């Protein structure tokens, strides 16, 4: 166990054995699938996209464009999302801002706090303010769906009204405030300080937010230690990670079975479990430059183990989820409880 376990709420004694099992399993996954140069790779990617320079110069246009593109990958395969953006273009800050500056007639676009229940539906071309629809600029952008249009405007309004136009400064202030006030459980508080406000931006899920913030905070500026600390604590739970925790029996052993969705970020959800697992794994064994407690690394290793673009071991293409997994060549076959995701109902129950 590492020193950081002291800062995490202790797990119930009757669940300690389940946690120990989960830690052993996750350690093996980190050895097999962990990206031992995760921070380097993230840093290089952000530099290539101009995000590191944007953070340094506080260039909100580049940051917005990068964030919105990340959000655009939500809810669909990366291939399809990227293909749509290639064909139809991307919505840029420089394009939205003049439209907002011109003073839109719709009352919902007056401020971040007015932008509630816009109701724009791309397919049906309707919204909650039909009198203003014909002059509204929100539907004029050809994004993949109406939710993305709303997410883009909501993000613009958040940056303008809540962050005062300086997202980098806003992040600094939020993290510094936690740094001043909180001594124990810092990781969770740092994560919460950013996720809680940003999750109110329309159409942005916790998963996408966590993923984007993890990369931004880990790789954007090494001279900001609070950013690195908060980025290491970001945990992105997608279906692959949730299903892994289900199939391996981790959720059942920790008495935390739940369906995929918002419950993954609720108390005793997947994010909570991964945080506790990570608190018991010293990530410096995989790379001395890593922080000792690195939940993002553990979660990313699990994702890589499962994903088709990673090791392609634990996913719906490889496993028949109606029955117990029989992939005996899986590297963690012996340690895994092999709980079926969608067990076939017995005939008596039918």
């Amino acid at each position: 166990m590492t020193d950081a376990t002291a800062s995490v709420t202790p797990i119930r004694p009757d669940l300690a054995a389940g946690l120990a099992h989960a830690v052993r399993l996750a350690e093996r996954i980190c050895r097999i699938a962990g990206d031992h140069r995760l921070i380097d790779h993230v840093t290089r990617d952000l530099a290539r996209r101009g995000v590191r320079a944007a953070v340094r110069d506080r260039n909100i246009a580049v940051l917005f464009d990068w964030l919105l593109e990340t959000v655009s990958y939500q809810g669909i395969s990366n291939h399809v999302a990227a293909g749509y953006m290639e064909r139809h273009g991307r919505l840029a800050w420089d394009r939205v801002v003049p439209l907002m500056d011109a003073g839109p007639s719709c009352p919902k676009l007056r401020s971040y706090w007015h932008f509630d229940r816009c109701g724009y539906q791309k397919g049906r071309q309707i919204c909650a303010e039909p009198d203003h629809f014909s002059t509204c600029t929100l539907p004029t952008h050809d994004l993949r769906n109406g939710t993305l249009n709303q997410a883009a405007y909501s993000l613009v309004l958040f940056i303008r009204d809540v962050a005062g136009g300086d997202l980098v400064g806003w992040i600094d202030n939020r993290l510094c405030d936690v740094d001043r006030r909180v001594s124990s459980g810092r990781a969770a508080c740092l994560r919460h300080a950013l996720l809680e406000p940003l999750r109110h931006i329309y159409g942005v899920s916790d998963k996408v937010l966590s993923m984007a913030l993890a990369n931004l905070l880990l790789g954007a500026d090494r001279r900001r230690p609070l950013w690195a600390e908060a980025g290491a604590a970001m945990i992105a739970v997608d279906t692959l990670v949730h299903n892994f925790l289900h199939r391996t029996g981790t959720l059942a052993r920790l008495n935390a079975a739940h369906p995929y969705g918002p419950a993954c970020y609720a108390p005793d959800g997947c994010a909570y479990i991964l945080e506790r697992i990570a608190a018991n794994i010293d990530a410096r064994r995989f790379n001395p430059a890593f922080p000792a407690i690195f939940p993002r690394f553990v979660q990313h290793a699990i994702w890589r183990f499962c994903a088709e673009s990673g090791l392609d071991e634990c996913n719906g293409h490889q496993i028949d989820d109606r029955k117990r997994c029989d992939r005996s060549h899986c590297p963690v076959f012996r340690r895994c409880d092999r709980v079926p995701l969608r067990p076939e109902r017995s005939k008596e129950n039918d």
Partner: protein
Amino acid sequence: MIEPRAVLVVYGLDPDGNPRAGRFAEPDAHIAVIAAGYLGYQVARIADAEALEALPAGNVFAQGIGFIPRKPGCDERRIGFDHPYLCAQRPIAPLRPGRAGHDDLRDRSARRRRNRPYHRSGRRF
């Protein structure tokens, strides 16, 4: 005796005419003042513990009616305009010393938006 620290309270009528009020702790209080200005709510600072207990916590990051939700089961007379503590308070001071009060916050926010560059490179919103 140490005087309890005053807490920011935002209150007013929502678009449907329902009285709403919510308290905001630091460090979100200054954003709550900006939001109140946009939404046309009043702001005050009160230190009375009993009065604060009757008020639900607001969420400065929530949009629409989520900003200052009505607390279920709470006596509306206690969280509406007629609350003695809210009535007794002068609207709180402006965002920055020496500037106008809350009445023209909305106008001032709009002016600020028009005049202020949004990052150091000088790009305007």
